[in-house]
């Protein structure tokens, strides 16, 4: 998923992940580009967020493209605990290992 929290796709992905996890599917989300902003820690009372924190508690795996976080000047300690930092190689393994792959670009 490439979309930042401003986009409806960010919310759609969150709701889909919740629904899939609720019926027992194993769900992984790979965030790239501005999509990584969905898992930045945001303490602002009016924080722009689709609310990805509960997904991690439900067992949904969330990974980021490390390169796209680095070029945005973001550090690892700025992200939700439990988020993994991965590469395009990891994404290719994810594509290979899944039953269904949905892209939101």
């Amino acid at each position, binding site marked *: 998923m490439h979309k930042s929290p401003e986009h409806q796709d960010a919310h759609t992905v969150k709701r889909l992940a919740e629904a899939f996890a609720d019926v027992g599917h194993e769900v992984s989300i790979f965030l790239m580009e501005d999509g990584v902003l969905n898992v930045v820690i945001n303490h602002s009372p009016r924080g722009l967020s689709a609310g990805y924190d509960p997904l991690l508690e439900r067992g949904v795996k969330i990974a980021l493209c490390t390169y796209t976080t680095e070029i945005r000047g973001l550090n690892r300690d700025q992200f939700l605990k439990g988020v993994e930092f991965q*590469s*395009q*190689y990891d*994404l*290719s393994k994810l*594509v*290979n290992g899944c*039953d*269904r792959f949905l892209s939101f670009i």
Partner: protein
Amino acid sequence: MKGVLKNVVFIIWATPFNTVLFPEALRMAIGQTVSDNRVSLLLMGDGVWNALNLVPHMIGRPDIHESMELLSACGVRVFADERSLKEREIGEHGSHVEKIGRTEAYHLITDADVVMNFR
């Protein structure tokens, strides 16, 4: 499907310079070849402008030549929709690009396990 090598198609609708979508799509495409997936790029609509022999670094945009060479070395085929080329009067394009008709493009998409759409 799980664990089986996938047929992955990247559809590019984005123009070359307005965003970094095209170089990012190339980076993802190269990544997908690492797991031996069969990867194709399909240039559609304004995405066919990427078929030209462009020199993006001249205007400070990410250079795509290394990625294109790597794609070719990894066996990634780059297709351009013939009608989109014609509509934009693009007569000449890079030698790495293969022109295809809408029916072939349709089959490329419907035969894919994974489609990534870059608009």
